[in-house]
């Protein structure tokens, strides 16, 4: 039991969540291997983001279990999960608007370091923090904007910072909530290339509506509808499945 579960990067077992009488997650189980690229699809209101919020700890499930590399994280607060190697991005841009790009990414780095409790030295004292932040910004192609505040930059660039903040943490499991939402075609290919270049020891779980792009990036696909897993498996098998057509691709 222990050996089989440690082989999984993330395991969700019989997860249930209801808001009052409305059941938003119904008996969802997922097994995701280290290094896997998993796409989660489903129509609006299928419970994709709610599932993410339970995995990241923003929401508590009513029952079920979530395991990260074999350890039970179902009731851990979000910040403890971050220290276990879980990182996420948001569907709605969640950045620090008045701060510079460098500062935003630095906060991502600081969150995992003991120096976040430092009360007498400024962040600038930690040179490696800024260096590391700039390196990450360089990897998403935004180094030239490092000293600009977030409020100065374009929406597409914010999407990339959103990604950079999470990537800087070098997560073992990365949850991407619609990383391509609202992007133009050119921006889309930039971000797509970025996601493709995520190191393969990072497990990536992605919610995305843009099927063509998303299916290229994913190896395995989970289809959710009304909070339930409808189909789950290899990309081509899921696309070919009757039920996928019915629910998502429009019969």
């Amino acid at each position, binding site marked *: 039991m222990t050996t089989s579960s440690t082989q999984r990067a993330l395991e969700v077992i019989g997860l249930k969540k209801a808001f009052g009488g409305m059941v938003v997650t119904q008996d969802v189980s997922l097994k995701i291997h280290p290094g896997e690229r998993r796409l989660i699809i489903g129509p609006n209101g299928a419970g994709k983001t709610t599932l993410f919020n339970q995995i990241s700890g923003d929401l508590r499930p009513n029952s079920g279990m979530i395991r990260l590399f074999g350890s039970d994280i179902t009731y851990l607060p*979000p910040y403890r999960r971050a220290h276990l190697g879980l990182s996420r991005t948001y569907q709605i841009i969640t950045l620090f608007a008045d701060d510079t790009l460098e500062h935003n990414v630095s906060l991502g780095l600081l969150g995992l370091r003991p120096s976040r*409790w430092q009360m007498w*030295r400024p962040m600038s004292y930690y040179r490696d923090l800024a260096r590391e932040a700039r390196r990450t910004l360089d990897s998403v192609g935004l180094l030239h904007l490092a000293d600009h505040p977030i409020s100065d930059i374009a929406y597409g660039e914010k999407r990339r910072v959103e990604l950079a903040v999470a990537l800087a943490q070098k997560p073992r499991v990365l949850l991407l909530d619609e990383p391509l939402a609202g992007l133009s075609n050119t921006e889309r290919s930039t971000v797509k290339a970025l996601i493709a270049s995520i190191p393969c020891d990072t497990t990536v779980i992605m919610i995305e509506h843009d099927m063509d792009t998303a299916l290229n990036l994913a190896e395995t696909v989970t289809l959710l509808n009304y909070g339930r897993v409808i189909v789950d498996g290899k990309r081509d098998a899921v696309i070919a499945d009757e039920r996928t057509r019915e629910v998502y691709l429009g019969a």
Partner: protein
Amino acid sequence: MRWIGVALLFGSLLLPPFFAGDFYINLASQILIAAIFALSLNLLVGYGGMTSLGHASYLGVAAYISALLTGRYGFGHGAAALISLSGTVAMAACFGVIALRASGLGFLMITLALSQVLWGLAYRMSNVTNGDNGIAGLTRPAPFGISLESPIAFYWFVLIIATLALVLMATFVSSAFGSSLKGVRDQPRRMAALGFNPWLIRWITFIYAGFWGGVAGLLYVYYHKYIHPSSLSTTSSAEALLGVIAGGSGTLGGPAVGAALVLLLKNYVSAYVERWNMLLGLVFLFIVLVMPAGIVPGISRLVAGLRGKAR
């Protein structure tokens, strides 16, 4: 340019003892005490996004503990100061646990309710606090044998502590922890997902703010040599909050300027107009309309705009 401003401001603080009369020196001391108090509240309001309407609790409790220990139980000032600050910090730790169960308006209401409890106690528990009569006949400490009875000596004493407070609070907000605090203020959910513990960050800040509120309370009771339940009242908390917001919350200089403004209005205007609160309200309204971010950010924007035009 900014440093010239800071140097000028600090230089002007060194001047009063040399040519101002006792009345003005005392007024300056009071302004400095109010500034320490406003700065400590600003840690919560401006940097932590926690609007408290009960900050007078810390000022009042520190003052009362010191007054009781020195006035009634014959403690020395050193020991009394130590005990009252520890007591205030412990109280802030407890109040923080209660108040931080909520945020926003809920947080404000809990801080208000807790301070009202203390205010009620100070009024009604008259066998201890002497109720509405307050505790009079107190003394000032004499650090290293230097008497602080004269206005000038006391001003120097307050100035040293105020400088220390400003430097330490400035260090706090610009530290890595301060960055975490501002992050938690702006995006608590993101900060938690990044590995920060928002609750603990807020709680530590709450306690630290309580500590400096307590320091202001000690200076307050040393200055007046008297303490009354009104020091714990909502008015006292609200005046400080008004100062913070009027001066510019989330800036270092703002709360000090705001506190000075409130105190000056109170002292000057109350000599001519009975309803000085009304004027304070009007001034506040003017500030909110003209400089919504507060006096200090408003003026610095004005200066930046003028400079931009000059170029």
